């Protein structure tokens, strides 16, 4: 047992520390970054805790432990002193004083103080521990708050000190400008707070705003690890870094694919309705309506992103079918064939993956049938007896590149040329370059079933492959090295459903240019404004860019006005300028496929519905760039 005298000494020393602590805390409030004060507070807490423990006052020591840690964090610079910390510390100081006076009698409010401290620390940079859900607050302070000297900023600061994670001003009640009274507070706020903050603490923030205050608060449950929906078997889904791939250990849910389609349709409709709403709200000039419209816009675009991410499917999900196909082909053709795949985790919109399956299988059949040589022939050429067909997938900007390569004999130029001439696809005696020649493989009527085995036939020619890829807004490239094999590369957009578009106007008609393809927008020089004036090239920073007049391409009526704009678009093939009358702005574009009735119209990759309900066509950038390239070639020849 401790003797009375020592205990008395401890008590008096502790009282001194408590006093010193209080004084320092109060000064710290006005000089929150004063190092000496911070060190002093920490020392006081540390000594109180230490001597408390020594004198058997574990209640004091235990209680102060978290405060000591908090100020240690402050000392190390990872946490800042603010009013709330001072308030809590002062409350703690009072509590310790009470504990000391009561000589071990259990003080009340201990839990509340510690919880408040924990909540406060959580809001700051040292936050950790379990999440107890989240408070969502929406409040409008009384309109006369400002007149009465109320300080909304202080209330917000206090909420921040309580650990507010998100704060957003609500502007829906701001009246039109001519009705605006600057003395009235029309703003409201929406604030998210950690669930660990007590309701009392939140209410206390509004202590001076109670009369006329509109406060809604609700507590959302702790967000569980977001449930990941996966529409496909995940057997050979390899984990991948990056946001698209579900983290291991998360629950997966199987969902019928058509529900995802339905969902995407709804989101598409939502985006269109939202565009209308934004337009109507903008015209009305009613800030409340504009605010709601902006909320909807934000939600719709988040909804769009989420829905699209749900629909992303790794290409590896169809790999099994290719392995099986290679196996069957090997069997039937009597040649060993290996099928390999890389980048199988590359994800594409599920519609794209589904529609790609048939064309890819056709290319694999072709490669096995025409590309890969029989084993003896391969051996004679010093190649491994087993032929390989390799599928690779990778991202490239907003596109996905899917290549199918074989290590066979390559495309026989002469045979293709002869066949093309025979089919009337090429004039007699023509000597086209590789790109033009290989392109003919995809021409309707090139591939026939007469000499092809039952494997490649099936009534699907390479023309159907190309059509499918074009329907998917993709392009095909062919490379071939005689004796070493051929590679067919499909270039596809990441998603089909919704793109960001640039809305332009020509002759009062509006068109959409996919924003991903837009490089820059420049003014059309006066000298080139009139049709036929000057050459068809723009000098943009010392490089010549061919340009096309949209009016001309689209056979638009009337004459162009002044100040025409040039939208410079780019693709892997090059750059081309598109002259339009006017740029309207960016537009969330829900792509609607054109009906088969318009399959013959090549200038457009689809259509969309604008905010005012009218239909607008989406320009096919690849087509435009190709036309520009042809112009360049002609230009060079003429020069």
């Amino acid at each position, binding site marked *: 047992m401790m003797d009375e005298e020592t205990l008395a000494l401890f008590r008096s020393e502790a009282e001194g520390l408590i006093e010193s602590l209080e004084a320092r805390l*109060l*000064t710290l*409030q*006005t000089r*929150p970054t004063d190092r000496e004060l911070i060190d002093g507070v920490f020392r006081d807490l540390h000594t109180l805790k230490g001597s408390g423990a020594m004198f058997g006052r574990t209640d004091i020591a235990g209680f102060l432990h978290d405060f000591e840690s908090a100020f240690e964090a402050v000392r190390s610079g990872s946490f800042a002193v*603010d*009013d709330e910390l001072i*308030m809590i510390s*002062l*409350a703690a100081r*009072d509590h310790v004083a009470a504990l000391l006076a009561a000589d071990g009698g259990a003080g009340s409010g201990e839990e509340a103080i510690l919880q408040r401290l924990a909540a406060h620390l959580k809001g700051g940079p040292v936050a950790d521990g379990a999440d107890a859900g989240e408070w969502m607050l929406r409040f409008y302070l009384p309109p006369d*708050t*400002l*007149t*009465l*000297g*109320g*300080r909304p*900023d*202080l*209330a917000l*600061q*206090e909420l921040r000190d309580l650990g507010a994670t998100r704060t957003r001003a609500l502007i829906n009640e701001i009246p039109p400008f001519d009705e605006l009274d600057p*003395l009235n507070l029309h703003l409201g706020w929406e604030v998210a707070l950690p669930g660990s903050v007590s309701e009392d603490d939140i209410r206390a*923030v509004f*202590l*001076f*705003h109670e*009369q006329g205050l509109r406060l809604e608060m609700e507590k959302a449950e702790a967000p569980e690890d977001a449930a990941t929906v996966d529409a496909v078997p995940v057997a050979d889904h390899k984990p991948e870094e990056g946001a698209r791939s579900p983290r291991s250990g998360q629950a997966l849910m199987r969902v019928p694919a058509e529900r995802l389609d339905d969902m995407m349709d709804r989101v598409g409709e939502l985006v269109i309705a939202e565009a209308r709403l934004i337009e109507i709200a903008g015209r009305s000039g009613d800030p409340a309506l504009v605010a709601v419209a902006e909320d909807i816009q934000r939600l719709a675009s988040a909804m769009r992103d989420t829905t699209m991410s749900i629909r992303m499917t790794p290409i590896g999900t169809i790999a099994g079918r290719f392995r099986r196909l290679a196996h069957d082909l090997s069997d039937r053709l009597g040649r060993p064939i290996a099928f390999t795949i890389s980048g199988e985790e590359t994800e594409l919109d599920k519609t794209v993956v589904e529609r790609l399956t048939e064309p890819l299988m056709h290319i694999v059949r072709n490669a096995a049938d025409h590309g890969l040589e029989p084993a003896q022939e391969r051996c004679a050429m010093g190649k491994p007896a087993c032929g390989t067909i390799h599928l690779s997938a990778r991202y490239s900007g907003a596109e996905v590149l899917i290549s199918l390569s074989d290590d066979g004999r390559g495309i026989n130029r002469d045979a293709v040329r002869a066949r093309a001439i025979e089919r009337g696809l090429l004039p007699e005696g023509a000597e086209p370059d590789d790109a033009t020649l290989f392109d003919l493989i995809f021409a309707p009527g090139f591939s026939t079933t007469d000499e092809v085995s039952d494997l490649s036939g099936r009534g699907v020619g390479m023309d159907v492959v190309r059509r499918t890829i074009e329907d998917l807004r993709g392009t095909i490239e062919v490379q071939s090295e005689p004796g070493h094999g051929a590679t067919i590369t499909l270039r596809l957009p990441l998603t089909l459903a919704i793109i960001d578009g640039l809305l332009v106007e020509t002759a009062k008609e509006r068109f959409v240019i996919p924003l991903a393809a837009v490089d820059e927008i420049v003014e059309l020089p006066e000298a080139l404004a009139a049709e036929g004036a000057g050459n068809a090239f723009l000098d943009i920073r010392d490089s010549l860019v061919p340009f096309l007049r949209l009016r001309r391409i689209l056979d638009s009526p009337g004459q162009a006005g002044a100040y025409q704009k040039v939208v410079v678009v780019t693709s892997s093939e090059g750059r081309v300028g598109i002259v339009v009358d006017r740029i309207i702005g960016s537009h969330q574009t829900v792509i609607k496929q054109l009906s088969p009735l318009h399959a013959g119209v090549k200038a457009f990759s689809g259509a969309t519905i604008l905010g005012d309900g009218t239909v607008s066509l989406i320009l096919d950038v690849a087509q435009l760039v190709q036309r520009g390239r042809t112009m360049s070639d002609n230009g060079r020849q003429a020069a």
Partner: protein
Amino acid sequence: MTRTVLVVDDSASVRQMIANTLKGAGYAVLTANDGREALDRTRGQRLDAVITDQNMPNLDGIGFCRAFRAQPGNQGVPVVFLSTESETSIKEKAREAGAIGWMVKPFDQQKLLSVMARVVGP
């Protein structure tokens, strides 16, 4: 920047107590005995906040508040009542007169400082 607070109370001890607490926390403090004196003191004086009692001779808190608000330049200066009364009706009257808040006596220093922090900021 030092913030200036006017403390209005007819009890010298209460005035003293509030003034000391505020001064300790770094505020500059003016004091007044009652509403009338308070009005005199506020003329031409830039204030950051006022803490006033309700029941005072000559001019009570609500009367002071109303007159204070009527003076040009006093809009937006927060007035907080500190009173033993706590009836809703009188609080509402204070609000109408232009007060932002109401504290009930007795109070402790800590509470006073937290109120001031809410009203005028740190």
